[in-house]
């Protein structure tokens, strides 16, 4: 059974803190993605990675960075958390190519106070 896991389901942080969200997949997928989900806005792509150590900006990369040191792990970093980064964060992975299904983790609900 395919699996994408995220390190936390719920997270509460203070403004200015550095925040790490981790995602692990066990399907040997080349691609990994970080999305942000907000009501009425759907999912918006923050960053994606198509190979180890490779990353590309998505539609809303400002305030975020990512790291992919191993194929199975993709980390999202909020360098200095702000209240407008309070959101649901979803990680996904897929094999390479546009035809492939993306598999999603359960999400991390982040609250920044």
């Amino acid at each position: 059974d395919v699996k994408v896991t995220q390190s936390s389901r719920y997270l509460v942080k203070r403004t200015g803190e550095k925040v790490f969200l981790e995602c692990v997949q066990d399907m040997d997928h080349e691609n990994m993605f970080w999305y942000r989900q907000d009501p009425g806005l759907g999912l918006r792509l923050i960053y994606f990675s198509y190979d180890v150590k490779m990353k590309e900006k998505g539609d809303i990369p400002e305030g975020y960075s990512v790291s992919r040191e191993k194929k199975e792990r993709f980390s999202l970093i909020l360098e200095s958390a702000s209240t407008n980064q309070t959101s649901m964060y979803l990680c996904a992975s897929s094999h390479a190519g546009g035809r492939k299904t993306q598999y999603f983790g359960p999400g991390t609900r982040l609250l920044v106070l």
Partner: protein
Amino acid sequence: AQSVTQLDSQVPVFEEAPVELRCNYSSSVSVYLFWYVQYPNQGLQLLLKYLSGSTLVKGINGFEAEFNKSQTSFHLRKPSVHISDTAEYFCAVSDLHAGGTSYGKLTFGQGTILTVHP
């Protein structure tokens, strides 16, 4: 660049009634189209996808969607819904560049919340 518009933010319906969730896209090139479903407190899972060939695509849980190239639409339908279909549904389009290459990035619509009432 692609974009996706889901025309209804919320769709209430009675159990056993038919339902249609509408999705329109814009793209200057050919596309791959997807419908994902998100049940409460879960991540997204694939319902169905259109890659090529027959314009009527069947998915899981009795859902189907029809690709209409002239109207740039990909509406999702189910002839008889159940309480368990209550969820948020997302339409998405894959980046597909001239020459057929793609990174597999998805552009999502805003989501439609389907609520099935007894």
